C-alpha cells in the first residue's frame, strides 16, 4: 500500500493510458481464493467502468509478483500498482476518474463506505477462507492425496490443503499453505476477528449489508445514476459471495446477502451493464428446491444461527488441535535429531 506514495513522488509525466496494460491475478478456476476473487473482480469492474483496456494475465505466483503481496495488480509501463485503492489513485493521476461529479460531502461518504466494505466483508471472507475448517476441507481445498503419505487419516481431515497449494509441487504446497494460513490467522487475531464464532461473523456481514442497503435506498447506484469505485468494490464482493459455493454454514453467506434485495439488484445491474454478462444470481430454481429440502431441518433463522454457533466453536477447537499436532511433530523431530547427534558423538 505504501507503494502508492512512492509512485506519487516519482510520477512526473502524466501520460495517457498506454496500450498493453496487464492485470495479473491467480488462476481463476483452480487456484483463486474467495477474498482474492472479490478483489480481482472489483478491479476488473472498475477498469471497465473507466473504459480502460487491460489484458488479464493469470499467473500461479501472482501473489508473490505483487509489490504489496496482494492481488490483483496492474503493470503499466514501468509501474506495478496493486489493489483497488492504489489503482484508483494511479488511474486518477492519468486524469481518469469516476468521482468528478461528487461534491466534497459525497466524497467523504464514499471514503467511509469503502472503508466499511474493506473493514467488514474483507475480514469476513478471510475468516471463512482460513479459519473455518469445513470450508478448508471441502471447497478451498483440492484433492488430498498428497496427504495420505504425510499424515494419518484422522489428521488429514483436520489439516487442510487449500487451493492455493494446488499449483505448487509436493512439499512446497504444504509449507506454503501452512505459512500463509498462520500469517492470515495472525492478521485476523490482531484485527479481533479470530475470536469470533461463525455466527458472529454472519452477524457482522448482515449489519454491513443492512447499512449498505440503507445507504443505497432506491438509487440506481450509490451516488445517483453514475457509478463510482464504491459500486465496483461492492460488486466484486457481492458477486463472489453469491456465486461461490461456501460449505460453511450451508452456504448461508449467499443466503444472507439474498435477503437484501437491493444489493442483489445492484450487483445484477453492474453485471449486465459493465461486465456484459448475465449470471443467474438469484438462482430461483435452486433456491426453491433447496428451500423445500431445508424447511424441515431449518425452521427458523434463529435455529440456524444456533447451529452455526456450535460450528463456530468447534472450528476453533480444530485449529488448536492442529497446532498441537504440529507442535508434537516438531518435538518428535527434535528428539530424533538429538538422538542422531548423540549416536554420532559416540561413534
Amino acid at each position: 500500500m505504501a507503494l502508492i506514495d512512492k509512485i506519487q513522488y516519482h510520477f512526473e509525466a502524466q501520460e495517457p493510458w498506454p496500450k498493453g496494460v496487464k492485470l495479473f491475478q491467480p488462476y481463476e478456476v483452480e487456484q483463486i481464493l474467495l477474498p482474492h476473487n472479490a478483489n480481482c473482480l472489483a478491479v476488473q469492474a472498475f477498469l471497465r467502468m473507466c473504459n480502460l483496456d487491460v489484458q488479464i494475465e493469470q499467473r500461479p505466483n501472482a501473489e508473490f509478483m505483487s509489490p504489496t503481496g496482494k492481488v490483483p495488480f496492474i503493470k503499466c509501463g514501468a509501474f506495478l500498482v496493486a489493489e483497488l485503492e492504489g489503482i484508483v489513485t494511479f488511474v486518477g493521476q492519468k486524469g481518469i476518474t469516476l468521482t468528478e461529479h461528487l461534491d466534497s460531502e459525497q466524497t467523504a461518504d464514499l471514503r467511509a463506505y469503502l472503508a466499511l466494505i474493506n473493514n467488514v466483508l474483507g475480514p469476513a471472507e478471510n475468516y471463512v477462507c482460513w479459519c473455518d475448517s469445513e470450508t478448508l476441507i471441502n471447497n478451498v481445498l483440492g484433492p488430498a492425496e498428497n496427504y495420505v503419505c504425510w499424515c494419518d487419516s484422522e489428521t488429514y481431515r483436520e489439516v487442510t490443503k487449500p487451493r492455493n497449494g494446488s499449483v505448487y509441487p509436493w512439499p512446497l504446497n504444504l509449507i506454503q499453505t501452512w505459512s500463509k494460513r498462520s500469517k492470515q490467522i495472525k492478521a485476523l487475531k490482531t484485527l479481533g476477528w479470530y475470536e469470533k464464532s461463525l455466527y458472529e461473523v454472519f452477524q457482522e456481514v448482515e449489519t454491513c449489508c443492512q447499512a449498505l442497503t440503507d445507504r443505497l435506498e432506491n438509487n440506481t447506484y450509490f451516488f445517483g445514476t453514475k457509478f463510482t469505485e464504491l459500486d465496483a468494490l461492492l460488486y466484486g464482493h457481492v458477486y463472489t459471495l453469491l456465486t461461490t459455493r461456501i460449505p460453511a454454514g450451508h452456504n448461508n453467506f449467499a443466503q444472507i446477502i439474498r435477503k437484501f434485495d437491493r444489493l442483489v439488484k445492484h450487483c445484477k445491474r453492474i453485471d449486465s451493464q459493465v461486465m456484459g454478462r448475465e449470471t443467474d444470481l438469484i438462482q430461483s430454481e435452486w433456491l426453491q428446491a433447496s428451500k423445500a429440502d431445508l424447511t424441515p431441518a431449518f425452521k427458523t433463522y434463529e435455529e440456524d444461527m444456533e447451529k452455526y454457533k456450535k460450528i463456530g466453536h468447534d472450528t476453533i477447537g480444530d485449529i488448536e488441535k492442529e497446532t498441537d499436532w504440529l507442535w508434537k511433530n516438531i518435538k518428535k523431530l527434535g528428539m530424533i535429531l538429538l538422538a542422531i547427534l548423540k549416536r554420532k558423538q559416540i561413534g
Partner: protein
Amino acid sequence: MELTIWEGDYGLPSICPDCIYMMLYTKIAKVPIVYKHRNNPYWDMGESFPIFKHGGIYTSNIQLIIGYLRIKRYGTEFGLSSKQCSQSYAFSSLVENSLRPILEYVWWVDHRNYEQFTKPWFVKAMPMPVNYLYPRCRRQRAVALLASLFSECENQDLLASFMFNMAEKCFATLKVRLGTANYFYGAVPTSLDAMIYAYLAPLMKLPFPSNEISRLLNTYKELVDFIRRIDAEYYPDLKKEVRFAVGEEKDNSTEASPLSVRAKLAALIFAVSAMLLYASTHKALPKLFIFY
C-alpha cells in the same frame, strides 16, 4: 455498574483511546456508572482496559459492552434515521481503519516517540516489575496491527510518509463531514463523536517528540474546536497538570546508567546460575570443587 480504566494525564480523561471512548459513550448515554482509575491491567486479570463489570458480567470487549448497554436501554443513537445510522456505522469503520493505525503508529511504533515519551511514561506510571514488560508487549501489538493492515512495514521513512498522507486524507474527510455543525449529527453527540474524540484528543494533547501528525491536526480548526467543545461539555473540571511527567533529558541519562548496571548484574547472575545448573545436572559439580 463499574468501568475500570487507565489513569489519565496531560488533560486526558484516560491514557488509552478505548477507555476514553467507553467513558465518553457512557457519559453521553447517561449511564449510572462508577469509573475506577487503575495503572496496572495485569492486576485486573486482563491485558487491556476498559473492563466493564455489572453483576456477573465482566468483559473488556467494547462491542459487547455497547450491546449490553443497549439491552439496558442506554444508547446514543436512538434519535437517528436509518440512513444516518448507516452513515455513522460507515464512518466508524473509516475511523477504525485509518485513525486507529495512525494513533498506534504515533504512540507506539514511531521509534523516537516510543523511546522518549511512551516508554518513560509507562515506566513511571505503572508499578515496578510490570512497567518494563507492558510497553514492550503493547508495542508488539501495535506493530502487528500495522503489519496486518499494511504489508510494507520495514522502511520507516516510507511508513511515516504513508501515515502522514493517510492522516491528511482522514482529517479532511472528517472535517467535511463535520462541517459547521457542533457535533456529527446535530446538537447531541453520538457514539461516532465519542469515537472520534477518543482518537483525536490524544493526538492533540500528548506532547510527542516527533509531532508532524499532531501539528497537521492543529491546522484543522473545526476538529480542534470539536475536541475543545467536548472537553468543555463533558470534562469541565479535568486537570491540565502533568502527573507522570517524563523526566528531562538529564534525568533520563542518569536513570539509564543504573538500569544498565542492573541489567549487567542480572545477566551475570543468570549466566553463573546456568553454568552451575549445567554442572550439577551432569554430575560435574564435585569434580569442579576437587579441581580447585
